[in-house]
């Protein structure tokens, strides 16, 4: 091999202008390289066909071994029963070999979902989702293993230490904090059920959502319920329009398990309009033309539990219009310098904002829960800045500054 390639090298040298090799400066190297690599191959190919059969043999050596090494590692066993499923499985396997983002293991059920995907891109998306899920799972497993090992290690060390000296200590409480906290929260929850301000989650959007979106919604509902429970002064949560045995209901029951029946909130099939007087209801939606100025403690706020990845704008506004309800949106533009992203916030963010408003009434404080990536900072509408601006205006420093800088610039030009 050594010899053959060395024999071949002078060939290439004379094809490529020699100076290119030497004078490859930093700036041009990239360009040159591309230029050369696109130019050279065709030339060298032509020459090679005519000139050197021995090298070809050498270079093609691997093919023979590839062909001979064949059947030993035959990829997969034949399964005749379900042809298309098996073929899909093989396809995924080949994609994995190619380094695409597909899962390593796939269950029958997932395969079936995959074959039901309407389009090629839907299939790819689903596979990528499975791949991500698998990766997260694997990482968690590894972490758990490492933790278990560390715990084992610590235990061993402790057992060694405990044999050394065993001393009595005085404590005031048993270590039952979690349970105590839960009981306390439950007690507060009961208080809220009796006297708390209602907060409604409108669940009438299940036909607007795909299964994945619905799952996200339920996750967000769970999280907002958790935030509410831990608050000093929780809302009395209503799940309205929650049809028994709808996809929503099933998913909620599945996620909460047996806790579902012990939750300190009201789940009802009724619409909020039936439960509360119409004029005290305010439907919160980002599409609303009316901006919320203060949090009113005598109103009933409705949040649509709707994850909208399909940008069906105006769905909840249409709903409020149909029921003839007042609508409001958060004053995001007034307080924040919005940068990117949708004005729609997640349910748990809404919940935390409302809780904060309820307790403090401070917008800056409450809007801390808006994701930081969505805005570049608070707009300062405080007294101080207004004062400053007025002063500037009065003394006309603003104008003179501006003029001065202008003239300076023109000079320098």
């Amino acid at each position, binding site marked *: *091999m050594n010899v053959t390639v060395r024999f071949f090298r002078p060939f290439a040298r004379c094809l490529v202008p020699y100076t290119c090799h030497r004078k490859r400066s930093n700036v041009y190297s990239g360009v040159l390289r591309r230029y050369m690599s696109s130019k050279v191959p065709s030339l060298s190919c032509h020459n090679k066909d005519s000139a050197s059969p021995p090298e070809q043999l050498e270079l093609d050596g691997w093919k023979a*071994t*590839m062909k001979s090494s064949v059947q030993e590692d035959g990829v997969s066993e034949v399964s005749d029963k379900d042809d298309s499923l098996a073929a899909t499985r093989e396809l995924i396997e*080949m994609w994995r070999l190619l380094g695409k983002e597909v899962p390593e293991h796939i269950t029958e059920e997932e395969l079936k979902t995959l074959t039901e995907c309407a389009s090629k891109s839907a299939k790819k998306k689903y596979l990528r989702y499975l791949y991500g899920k698998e990766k997260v799972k694997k990482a968690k497993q590894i972490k758990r293993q490492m933790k278990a090992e560390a715990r084992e290690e610590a235990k061993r060390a402790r057992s060694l230490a405990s044999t050394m000296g065993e001393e009595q200590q005085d404590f005031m409480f048993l270590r039952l904090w979690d349970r105590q906290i839960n009981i306390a929260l439950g007690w507060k929850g009961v208080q809220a059920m009796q006297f708390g301000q209602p907060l409604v989650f409108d669940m009438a959007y299940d036909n607007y959502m795909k299964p994945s979106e619905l799952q996200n919604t339920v996750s967000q509902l769970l999280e907002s319920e958790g935030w509410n429970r831990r608050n000093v002064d929780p809302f009395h949560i209503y799940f309205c329009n929650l049809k028994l045995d709808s996809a929503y209901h099933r998913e909620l029951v599945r996620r909460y398990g047996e806790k579902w029946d012990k939750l300190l909130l009201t789940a009802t099939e009724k619409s909020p309009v039936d439960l509360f007087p119409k004029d005290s209801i305010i439907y919160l939606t980002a599409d609303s033309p009316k901006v919320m100025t203060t949090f009113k403690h005598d109103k009933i706020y409705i949040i649509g539990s709707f994850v909208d990845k399909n940008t069906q704008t105006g769905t909840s506004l249409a709903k409020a219009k149909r029921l003839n309800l007042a609508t409001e949106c958060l004053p995001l533009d007034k307080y924040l310098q919005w940068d990117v992203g949708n004005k729609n916030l997640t349910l748990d963010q809404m919940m935390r904002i409302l809780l904060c408003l309820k307790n403090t009434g401070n917008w800056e404080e409450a809007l801390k829960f808006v994701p930081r990536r969505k805005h570049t900072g608070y707009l300062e509408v405080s007294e101080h800045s207004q004062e400053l601006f007025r002063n500037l205006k009065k003394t006309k420093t603003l104008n003179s500054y501006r003029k001065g800088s202008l003239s300076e*610039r023109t000079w320098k030009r």
Partner: protein
Amino acid sequence: MTFYLSGFRNFPKLWKSNPYFELGPAASSASFFLTVHCVTGNQQRWFSVKPTTPPNSKTLNLLVAKARTHKKRNDSNKQVSSDPHYFAAGAAKKRSHLGGNPQNQDHALPVRSTVQLPTKPLNSEEWDKLKEDFKGKVSFEDFVISQMARSCSSVDVAKSLLAWVAAKHHGIVGYNLLVKYLYLCVFHKQTSEVIDVYEIMKAKYKSLESGAYTLLIRGLIHSDRWREALLLLEDIKKVMDPSKKNYGDCIQGALLHQDVDVAWSLYQELLGRNLVPLLETLKAFFDYGKGINDDHYSNKLLDVLLYLRNNQLYPGESFAHSIKTWFESIPGRQWKGQFTTIQKSGQCSSCGRTIESIQLSPEEYEFLKEKIMRDVIDGGDQYKKTTPQELKRFESFVNTCPPFDIVIDGLNVAKMFPKGRESQNLLGVVSQLAQQNLQLLVLGRKHMLRPSSQWKKDEMEQVQKQAHCFFTDNISEDDPFLLYATLNSGNHCKFITKDLLRDHKACLPDARTQRLFFKWQQGHQLAIMKGFQKSKLTFQHILSYDTVVQTTGDSWHIPYDEDLVQRSSCEVPTKWLCLQRKTQAPC
């Protein structure tokens, strides 16, 4: 110290105000920015002065440079004038340039490679050495072969890499390396190598994946074993739909080997799968057709042209040339082709024939009207765009009024000239049109009636005197009403807005209705070019003819896309291929 006193909130928007940047970067680099935000509330205004972090001078200079080049481009664009109509190819791009929208230039990021790609085959020691120098996340072989594929290295270099890998791994070369090698082979048209790799893959793997199949098909069609490409196509079909490229390659392979029947049946299958064939594929049929004199074949080609017509596809420039040469090659018929344009009157500049009218047929018109009502305004939920009460009010209003000549999108027109007051703009346009004795309808929102700094009461009263007016609720959409009012008034009625109405087009259920809508829009939309008080109101001229592939039996007119013009989806080509028979041959 500089003060940027501007209404713009965020920094990128400052690009629009070119004058700042024209002053030069010198002073600004040393300053920190004091942005003054002006927040307009309902009535009162707050101002806040807020120091933002000074962007470093480098980025600023970059911005300045960008703004300058941008301006330059604008100027050069202005010199290239005379755009024929609102929907002409490239017109939207030009408009956006004139509007001074910031252009997002995509800077090609330099490909950072830690390894100098070899330009000649290396031996194993050299590869080893190269590998030692390499630092990266992915494996060395993967990285190198990907780079080779990207820069289209010679097959031999790749081969030497594979040989090295095989020597190291007991003769096994990974599938991904094989596929990328195959890519290089296909790219360099090394058919024998493709066949070798094909043999290896067939032997080693039971089935492949779509990427490799695609490459193999493309590689095999040039060889004698092109029929195996069809088998590979069958293999793809087992798991997923083949792409139009797969079909296109197979068809081209069949045509290369003179198997016309296979090619046409593949074409039928392609259409059957609701795929839109690549224009290259269609071109291949025309290119092949030059050689043969067969009525059956030429009928099929005419079918292809009708397919283009029905789906409103336009051939590219080279395809247009192919069509022309095919027509001219038909013996005995003496077709004569000419590249031309259509005059404003709708006559072909070369033969003088009138191109098909843009007007919809009565059935199409009724169909579109109903669809607009059902899908755009109602859309399954009347509350989304309007309310049932409002809809009823609107319908009774439309029915009591005589048919309109022109329907005006009040808000769009009013905001067209930022210099003037909004009600003043609207009144200007309305009164100019009213002088021509036209029945006008102005659509607007209710807030226009509430006197404010922008909307003066007396001016609105004058508008209402000169035109019929309909004001929707402030949260309703007015465009759907505009569409319906125009459609309801009949074919002569036009509407004025600068909006391209793409979102409403998107509400329509299928491509056919959307095309119908687009055709109607081309024929009925008036876009104001200028018309601010002093100057006379002028519109972009309306197309009187339909831009679509069309025939009269002894003539064909085929619009085509020029290679150098970028056409957006809401525009139509301006160049045409005119074909006609020289002597009327009896047939």
